[in-house]
């Protein structure tokens, strides 16, 4: 099973990135092999719709689980079309959050924020 986590830096000791769509990297961790990789989030620099594109990237990575502090409505809409489950990250590093998930200590994320697009009136 694969877990995706937004990351500020390409190290496991890094904190989980506070933004999903704008995270510079995603850590993709395979639970069976206990190996993981950092992939770049090409959506991080896009002017709008970062959430949709980031969700596309996560889905394309074949992740089954997403651990994130927050997630927008549009990204949630993308995930709804898949079997992916979303969990809310806790304070601490990426490694801490993977451990917490494995110990069943993370709660399901079911609150999605409205888009920030339009604010500023593009």
């Amino acid at each position, binding site marked *: 099973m694969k877990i995706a986590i937004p990351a500020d830096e390409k190290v496991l000791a890094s904190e989980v990135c506070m933004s999903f769509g704008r995270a510079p990297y995603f850590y993709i961790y395979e639970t069976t092999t206990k190996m993981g990789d950092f992939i770049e989030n090409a*959506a991080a620099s896009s*002017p*709008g*719709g970062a959430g949709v594109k980031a969700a596309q990237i996560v889905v394309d990575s074949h992740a089954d689980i997403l651990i994130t502090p927050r997630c927008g409505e549009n990204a949630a809409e993308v995930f709804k079309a898949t079997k992916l489950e979303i969990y809310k990250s806790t304070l601490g590093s990426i490694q801490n959050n993977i451990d917490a998930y494995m110990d069943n200590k993370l709660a399901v994320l079911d609150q999605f924020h409205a888009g920030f*697009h339009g604010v500023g*009136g593009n």
Partner: protein
Amino acid sequence: MKLAVLSGKGGTGKTLVSVNLAAVAKNSVYVDCDVEEPNGHLFFKPVEIKKEKVSIKIPVVDEDLCLGCRKCVDFCKFNALAAIINKLIVFDDICHSCGGCIMLCPSHALTEMDKVIGEINSGISEKVKVISGILNTGEASGIPIIKELLSKISAEEKMTVIDCPPGSACIVMESIRDVDYCILVAEPTVFGLHNLALVYQLVKLFNKPHGVVINKWMAGENLIERFCSDNQITVLDKIPFESELGTINSDGEIAAKSEKYYGLFSELLKTVVKEVEHETVTHS
């Protein structure tokens, strides 16, 4: 002549100024471009209302024709499309209706569909033509409505007052594109000054002739007056801070209909007209 009334934030007297200017100009047009919160009509209470829907074009996919090639997804720079398990999802609230994806789809799986995002109401209030744009809640951009509003008045000869959306974003730029003069309304507080500085940047960027109206003015040291004199901005008028005016306004009445305030707003209009004429002379 087209005048735009702007402010950095809602609730600073922008509608008060625009409504009353249009009212004293009599044979005039009032256009409410504050499409997220149009409230000028509450004062004018126009009759003979005509309603028109405003829609945008968004793509819809024919799943039987879609090859799942993702060309459209990669193309859309607004990221309004996602291809999930070979199913294309369109996010119409992010789509900017550029039509690009429809043109490039190799299997003609995408077609245009109209999506209503709001409406325009036009009516008459005594001699003032009142036109308001209304954006449906949840829609990302009111710009298509503003464009429609402005196209309605592009050939207008009468005095036209445009009540702009608050702030200094693209939608405001769209609203002031064709105007002859911008009136910036500000309140003499620290926030008011900050908001004024933002819209001032915008009108300077667009090289629009402009002046400031200070709302809720009180005698004494005044932040806005200092800012205006430092930047050589004309102060067009000072609307005094009076509870009577506040009451008239919160009752949804037009202040300029009372003798007391008629003078104030007709003087303001005269000053603005003089400014515009002066601009035309110096720029030609």
